[in-house]
C-alpha cells in the first residue's frame, strides 16, 4: 500500500460519458440552406433510427480539459527515456508533423485523378526508391499498414510466387525468438509454422535448420539482427539453404534501425523485407499506431506485388516524367487495404530520410549500436551484472537482452517487479518476457537519440532498485507508487470483461 497518494491518484478516473449532461453541446453545424422535409420522406421509416446514439453531451471547454487530463495520465517519449526493445522509440521530429499537415497532403482526396495528385505520387515514388536503396532490393510496395500487415503481404507473395511455378508448399520456418506477429501471420496466410532452435551464440541453430528445410518449406522468416539484438553471422549460409530448397527468405524489419547504411537485407539474400516506418523512420507511435509497413522485394517477387503500384512514366516529349497508379498487374496478389496506403506516414518518413540523408542514416544506426553497447556495458557492472546478466555475452547491435533469472532466484524479484519499480524512477521499462527463450527477459533498445546522460541515469536506477531490493524486496514487488494508478487487476479485466461504459 502506498503511504501517500499522489494528486493524480486522488483524482478518480472519470469518463467523458460521466461528465455528460442533457442539453450541453460543443458543435454548431452549418444551417441546412435547403428544404427540410421530414426524414420519413427521404428514407423509409423502417430504415431510420429511433433514438440517436447516446454520445456524451459536453461543452467544448470541458472536452478540452477532459482530454488534457487524460493526456497527463500517459507517459510518452517526449517526457523521458523509453528503451522498449524491438520498438525503436526514437525522437519524433515535429517538422514531420508540420509537413504532413500541409493542405496539399492532409486534404488531398485519395480518389483524386492521378494527374492532379502528381506531388503525392512523386513523394510515394521517391520514398519507394529510398527504401529500395536502404533495403538493397529493387522494388517496393508502400501499401501494408504496419509490420504485421507487411508480414501477411510477404507470405501471400510467397504463396503466389510458388503457385506461379505450380508448387503448393505448406510450411513456414521461424526461429523460436521471433516476434509473435510472425507465427500469427503464418496461420492467417494458410501455412503451418515450424520453429527453428537458437544456438548458444544466439543465432539460428544450423543443424536444426538443415533438418527442417525441405521442399515443403515455403519461407523462412527472420529478423536480423534478431530479437536478441545479435546479427546472425551465418546469414549467407542460411539464405543459400533456403534458396536451394526453393523457399523465399523473409526479413522482419522491426530491427532495421541497427543496419541502415551499414548492411542491407537484399545483400544478405532476403527476398522480401518489411520496414516499420513507425520504428526506424520516426513516425510517432501514437499510443498504438498509426504506422506503415512497406515491403521491398527482389525481382522474382515483383510481379506479384499488391496493386495499385506507384510508377514513374517518362513523357518522351521533353516535359519531364509523370507518376501514376498502375492497376494493370495481372499476377498481383491484389489489394491489401483501401486506397494507396498510410500516405500521411509516408510524408513524415520521407521528410525524415531527407533530413538525415545517406550520411545521417548511417550515423543513426552507428549511434544506435554504440548506445546499446554502452548501456550493455554499464549494466554489466555492479549489481546489474550479477542479478540481471546479459543473456548472450557478445557485442550486440541496436538492442540486447538481459535475464532476470538470478535476480528472481536470489532476491525473489521478478522481471515484472523491476519493470514496475522503474516506473517510479520516471523510465519506461524495457520490453519484458520477450524473447521467450530467455528466462525473465528484459529487452533493451535505447536508440540513437538518447544522450549518454540518459543511459547513465537508467543504469543508475537499475543499480539503485537492485540495492534497495537486497534490504527491502517488498518495495519493488508492490511498485509502482507514483503512477496515476498502481498495479492493475488484469485477470479481472479478462474474466469479467467490461469493455464499454454502461449508460442509462
Amino acid at each position, binding site marked *: 500500500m502506498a503511504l501517500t497518494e499522489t494528486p493524480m491518484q486522488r483524482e*478518480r478516473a472519470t469518463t467523458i460519458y460521466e461528465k455528460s449532461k442533457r442539453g450541453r453541446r460543443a458543435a454548431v453545424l452549418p444551417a441546412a440552406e435547403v428544404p427540410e422535409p421530414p426524414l420519413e420522406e427521404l428514407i423509409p421509416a423502417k430504415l431510420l433510427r429511433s433514438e440517436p446514439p447516446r454520445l456524451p453531451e459536453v461543452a467544448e471547454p470541458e472536452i478540452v480539459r477532459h482530454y488534457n487530463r487524460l493526456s497527463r495520465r500517459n507517459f510518452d517519449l517526449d517526457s523521458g527515456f523509453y528503451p522498449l526493445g524491438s520498438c525503436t522509440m526514437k*525522437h519524433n521530429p515535429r517538422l514531420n508533423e508540420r509537413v504532413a499537415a500541409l493542405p496539399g497532403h492532409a486534404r488531398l482526396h485519395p480518389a483524386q485523378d492521378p494527374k492532379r495528385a502528381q506531388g503525392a505520387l*512523386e513523394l510515394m515514388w521517391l520514398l519507394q526508391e529510398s527504401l529500395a536503396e536502404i533495403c538493397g532490393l529493387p522494388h517496393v510496395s508502400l501499401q501494408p499498414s504496419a509490420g504485421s500487415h507487411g508480414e501477411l503481404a510477404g507470405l501471400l507473395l510467397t504463396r503466389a510466387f510458388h503457385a506461379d511455378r505450380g508448387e503448393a508448399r505448406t510450411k513456414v520456418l521461424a526461429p523460436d525468438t521471433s516476434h509473435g506477429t510472425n507465427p500469427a501471420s503464418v496461420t492467417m496466410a494458410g501455412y503451418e509454422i515450424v520453429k527453428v532452435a537458437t544456438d548458444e551464440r544466439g543465432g539460428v541453430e544450423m543443424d536444426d535448420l538443415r533438418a527442417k528445410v525441405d521442399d515443403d518449406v515455403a519461407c523462412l522468416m527472420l529478423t536480423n539482427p534478431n530479437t536478441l539484438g545479435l546479427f546472425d553471422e551465418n546469414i549467407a549460409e542460411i539464405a543459400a539453404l533456403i534458396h536451394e530448397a526453393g523457399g523465399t527468405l523473409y526479413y522482419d524489419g522491426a530491427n532495421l534501425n541497427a543496419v541502415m547504411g551499414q548492411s542491407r537485407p537484399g545483400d544478405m539474400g532476403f527476398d522480401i523485407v518489411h520496414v516499420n516506418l513507425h520504428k526506424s523512420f520516426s513516425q510517432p507511435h501514437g499510443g498504438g499506431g498509426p504506422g506503415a509497413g512497406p515491403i521491398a522485394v527482389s525481382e522474382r517477387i515483383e510481379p506479384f506485388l499488391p496493386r495499385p503500384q506507384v510508377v514513374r512514366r517518362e513523357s518522351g516529349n521533353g516535359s519531364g516524367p509523370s507518376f501514376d497508379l498502375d492497376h494493370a498487374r495481372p499476377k498481383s496478389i491484389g489489394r491489401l487495404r483501401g*486506397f494507396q496506403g498510410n500516405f500521411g506516414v509516408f510524408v513524415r518518413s520521407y521528410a525524415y530520410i531527407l533530413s*538525415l540523408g*545517406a550520411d545521417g542514416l548511417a550515423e543513426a544506426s552507428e549511434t544506435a549500436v554504440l548506445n546499446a553497447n554502452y548501456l550493455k556495458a554499464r549494466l554489466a557492472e555492479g549489481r546489474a551484472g550479477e542479478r540481471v546478466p546479459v543473456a548472450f555475452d557478445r557485442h550486440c547491435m541496436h538492442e540486447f537482452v538481459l535475464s532476470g533469472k538470478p535476480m528472481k532466484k536470489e532476491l525473489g524479484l521478478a522481471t515484472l517487479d523491476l519493470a514496475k519499480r522503474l516506473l517510479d524512477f520516471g523510465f519506461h521499462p524495457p520490453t519484458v518476457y520477450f524473447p521467450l527463450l530467455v528466462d525473465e527477459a528484459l529487452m533493451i533498445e535505447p536508440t540513437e537519440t538518447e544522450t549518454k546522460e540518459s543511459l547513465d541515469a537508467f543504469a543508475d536506477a537499475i543499480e539503485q532498485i537492485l540495492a534497495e531490493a537486497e534490504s527491502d524486496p517488498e518495495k519493488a514487488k508492490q511498485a509502482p507508487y507514483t503512477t496515476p494508478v498502481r498495479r492493475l487487476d488484469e485477470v479481472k479485466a479478462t474474466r469479467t470483461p467490461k469493455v464499454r461504459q454502461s449508460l442509462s
Partner: protein
Amino acid sequence: MSRYTSATPADREQMLAAIGVDSVEELFEQVPEPLRLGRELALPAGMSEAEVYERLAELAARNADAEEQVCFLGAGMYDHYVPAIVDAITQRSEFLTPYTPYQPEISQGGLQAMFEFQTAMSELTALPVSNAGLYEGPSSVASAAYLAIAASKGRRRFVVSRGVHPHSRETLATYSVGYGAEVEEVGLEDGLTDAAALAAAVDGETAAVFLQSPNFLGAVEDVEALGAAAKEHGALLVVAVDPMTLGVLKPPGEQGADIALGEGQPLGNRLDFGGPSFGFFCGTEELMRKMPGRIAGETDDADGRRGFVLALQTREQHIRREKATHNICTAQALNALAATIHLAWLGREGFRELGELLLRRTAYARERLAATPGVELLHEAPVAREIALRLEAPVDRVLERCAERGIAAGYPLGREYPEHEDGLLVAITERRTRTQIDDLAEALGAAIAACGDLPVHTTGKSPQGVH
C-alpha cells in the same frame, strides 16, 4: 547529416572505452565483411529543416486538394470538417509519442481513450462490443472473414454483395487465398443488392454474408431483410456502415448484424490521400473472445482505484502466436482518438443533426442534379450522402472540364464497375454548401453539353484501367 543525436566526440570516446573497443566499426564486426555495405547509400546528403520543409511544400503544391477544389469525391473517404480541438489534442506529445499501452500504470490516458472510443462505436452500431480499432475499412472486412471461419468452426465460403466497397471486396479476395476460402459475389438490381440472388447464394457452407449500407452506389439497403438468408443458414451477418450516417439510419445492431465495421475516416480524420485512418469493428457478446485487435477494459488497481488495461490479451499474437485471432499489432490508436474527440464534440444532438443535414443536402443535390440536362439518376433507391448518376457524355471528359472550373465533381464509377462506364458518384458532406451544389449542377450541365456530341462509350478504359 547527423540529426537528432547527441553523442559528442568526447562522449563517444568515453562510451567506446566503457565498452572496451577502439571504434564503432569493431561493434559491426559481427556483420560478415562481404555483407557490410562499404559505401554510402545512394541517397542525397541530409538537408536543413528549412530545406526539407521547402521540398515537401513544393511537392504538396502539386496536388489539387480540397482547399483548392470543391470536393465532391467520396467512395469511402469524405471531406468533413475536422474540429480544431482534434488537432490540438492529438498533437499533444502524451498522445502522439507513446507506444502501445503495454505498461497500463503509465498509459491510463490512452487506455481510457480506447474505452471511450469503444463505448462510442458500440453506441453508433448498437452492438455491445467494440475493439479499439483496426487499420482501415477494407482490411477490417477481410478480418471479419477470418473471425467468421473460426466462429463457424471452419466454414470457408463467403457471400458478398457487389454493393460492398470494391476495395473491400478485393481485399477480402486477397486474404481469402490465405484463408483457403472462396468468395461469391452477388449483383445489384436498381442500386440495391439482389435479394433473390443473395438468398440463392447462401448455403450451409457459408461462413459469412457481407453487406454494406449505404452501399457503394449510395443506396440504403434493407439489411434486416437481406440478412434473413444468413440467419437461415447460420452464417454471420457482417455489415459495413458509414459511421456518419448512424445518427439517422437504423444501426446494424438493430438489423440483425453480428458484426458491424467500416472505414473510420469520416470521424475526425483528415483525407491524407487515403490514410492513416482507422477501421472500426463491433460485434456481439458471443464473438468478443474471437475479435481481432486491442480491446481496453475497466478494472481496479491494487488500492481499489478505477483503471483501464488491455483486456482479453489471450486473443492476441504476442501471447497466442500462431493460435491468435489475428496477427495485428500496431494499429491506428491515434486515429481512433481523433474519432473519439470528434464524436464528443458533435455530441448526441450534434451527431444526429449532422446526419439529418447530410440526408437533406443530399436530397437537394439529388433533385438538382437529376434535373440537369444530360444527367439522370443511376438508381431510385433511398440515399443518405452519396448519389450515383448516369451522364450522357464521357465521364472522364466531363470530370476534366469540371476540374478546370475548380470542382472535383465525383468518382467515376467505371473505374470499378465496367457496367457503369457512364456512372458518376457524387458525395455530400456538411462542407458542401447549397451554392457549391448549384455550381456543380451547372458545371456538369455545361460540361455534358460541350462533350455531348461524343458517344458515351468511346473512351474505353478510364485512365486507371478497369479491374
